[in-house]
């Protein structure tokens, strides 16, 4: 658990944060007297909640999308893992499953969808096409891997991947979510490939405004 080095809170000396014994004793005493108290890291609670209710964006461009529908249907039933609430608006979604080929023309649209999602957000690249262009690597109009546009958390290979592979990939994502720290550190480990560029543009914009 990551705690800020020296939290400054009135009346509680810093050392007490390390003193688990007193807290445990306190909890025990309370429990014995019939008060239901549990202690734990708030991070764990948040991660547990978040990892079990990942809401995917309905985003499918081609064949893999049909398998995604099969995963959502009765036999494979992704509701078992809490992924069933597919959202049609990126603003309500947590994870974007890139199902299918991304073409040159679609790339800016995908980027915009990603930017519209609220943090924390995740990307799963599903199928050969989303990973590397798949069978269409030789094409003049296909992006060879979505990780060139947006940062990807989990790759699920296959053409199309079996529904089990979808679920396994999503479970890997859950694992990733479960070890995250909500408090104190930066959530996203991966760099947004466009961040630097955006910053540059922003600085330039500021300059222009100053000049004006």
């Amino acid at each position: 658990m990551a705690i800020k080095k020296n939290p400054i809170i009135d009346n509680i000396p810093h050392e007490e944060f390390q003193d688990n014994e007193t807290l445990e004793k306190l909890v025990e005493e309370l429990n014995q007297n019939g008060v239901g108290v549990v202690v734990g890291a708030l991070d764990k609670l948040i991660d547990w909640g978040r990892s079990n209710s990942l809401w995917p964006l309905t985003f499918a461009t081609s064949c893999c999308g049909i398998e995604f529908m099969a995963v959502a249907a009765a036999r494979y039933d992704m509701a078992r893992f809490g992924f069933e609430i597919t959202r049609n608006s990126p603003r309500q979604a947590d994870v974007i499953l890139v199902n299918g080929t991304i073409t040159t023309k679609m790339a800016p649209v995908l980027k915009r969808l990603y930017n519209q999602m609220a943090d924390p957000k995740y990307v799963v690249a599903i199928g050969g096409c989303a990973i590397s262009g798949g069978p269409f690597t030789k094409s003049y109009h296909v992006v060879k891997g979505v990780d060139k546009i947006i940062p990807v958390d989990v790759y699920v290979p296959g053409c199309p991947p079996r529904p089990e592979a979808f679920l396994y990939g999503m479970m890997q994502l859950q694992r990733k979510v479960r070890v995250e720290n909500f408090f104190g550190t930066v959530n996203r480990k991966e760099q947004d490939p466009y961040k630097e560029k955006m910053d540059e543009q922003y600085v330039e914009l500021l300059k222009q405004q100053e000049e004006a």
Partner: protein
Amino acid sequence: MEENEKSICPETPQPQPVQEEKKETAPTDKSTSQPTAAPTPKPAAPRPTPPPASPAKNEIKPEVVTPEELHERLAHLKAEGYSLLENLTGTDWGEEGMGVVYSLTNPETFDMTHVKVIAADKETPYLDSVTDLWDIANFYEREVYDFYGIIFLNHPDLRRLFLREDWVGHPFRKNGYEESNNPEIAETDEPISDLAVKYTLTPDGKLHKEETPLFAEEDYVINLGPQHPSTHGVLHFRTRLEGEIITKIDPHLGYIHRGIEKISEELTYPQTLALTDRMDYLGAMQNRHALCMCIEQALGVEVSDRVQVIRTIMDELQRIDSHLLFFSCLCQDLGATTSFLYGFRDREKVLDIFEETCGGRLILNYNMIGGLAYDIHPNFQRRVKEFIPMMRKNLKEYDDIFTGNVIFQNRSKGVGILSKEQVISFGCTGGTGRASGWHNDLRKHRPYAAYDRVEFKEVVRTEGDSFARYMIRLDEIRESLHIIEQLIDNIPEGKIAEKMKPVLKLPVGSYYSAVEGSRGILGVHIESKGDKMPYRLHYRATGLPLVAVMDTACTGYMIADLIAIGGTIDYVVPDIDR
């Protein structure tokens, strides 16, 4: 995938020269040895080299006309009864120049005729537009303009169809196109122009460009897509509204254009098969069947009876799969989630059958040139026979839960009506055409595989509305079950694949074959120059006419009806864009 191809490529040419030598030496041997050593024909006899298919069954010999005669000739043919523009293939013949092959069909008898024209100018080729004769020519010509840069004079709206408007060059041209002119990833949002472009020829022979706005300044236009849950993929409709009434739809395509036809030009014939399943993935079997059939017929290869029957069964299973998905998605789009689950429950059963034999659920890779990849699984017949009565029973459930639903009936009856003339002019084949009273089932009218020996009804309705299109599909599931039932116990013994050479070379010529796909006529047009790769491979996509007709089908109806109309017209976007 790519690695595989690479490893195949350098290897395959090796056996080829050896074989060719053999072929060349064989006839000389014969001619010299026959008169002298007649009693020893043994080495020749067991190897009956198939003759290079003198007149291949599907070879087309297009009538060549000059650009000046073109319009008149096509108008004449149309008046003669060829009132369906089944296919339009643009080609760059290199030295000869660029041009177009028009494939016309008589919508009653299904006779075909082909007309070929080559534009005079090689740098900026132009031809007369035939948009005034056929509505679908609008989209077909825009596609050719996009790929080859052939300008169609008097076309009302000659914009690019698939590629971005700021795309440099025309990718299908055989020379002069630089891929590096265009970035792999577009950094900027796409500029979408509001101007329709029209080219005319001035009296002194120069091209004149005219731009007219698509929408007026005060029009209320909303964008549906490219990311919209009910456009069934990435499709973009610019919809003009008058209150709640749609007055115009401008479909914007190409978000999933992968250039399959262009990639195919660099693949050998067996390799091109890999991409067919990925076009219309709900017609994977039929797509591949069409391409295999086209190549086989061009080579003069006869596949065994067993193959024909198995292909027929597989095509029908695929049709059921597709129609079940159609049902599920339509219900889902209209808010009936339970029906969606019902449809998928049964679809999984079909996928089980596929998976056991083909190893794949969606992308099946089953048909091969000359036969099949594998024989059917020992369980195949048993499973299919279990499936048929189960499906029949469940179809009743569908009717109970969804067909009779008042909300659905109100949203679909009398909505999105298409007349027979309209569907023919737009080339809407398959269930959409049959719902408007047009008998267009290729299985009946140009029988292939084992369809001539089974008995089935061609399901046709006359209302032409969304409800009719929906009912057609449910009834077709019943007919497909009926076809399978007749064949499943009568699969003849025989070879599952003919022995094919590792490197196939199609004789020089143009070939066209078509099958009845899940949603209409799926045609394959191959131009061969005798190489091991196709010079031009064009698919007559089933979906392009279906999306082209959306403007006509939706105009005058409410915006909420667009979903039901689009759902029942049943297009698959990767098939449109290819």
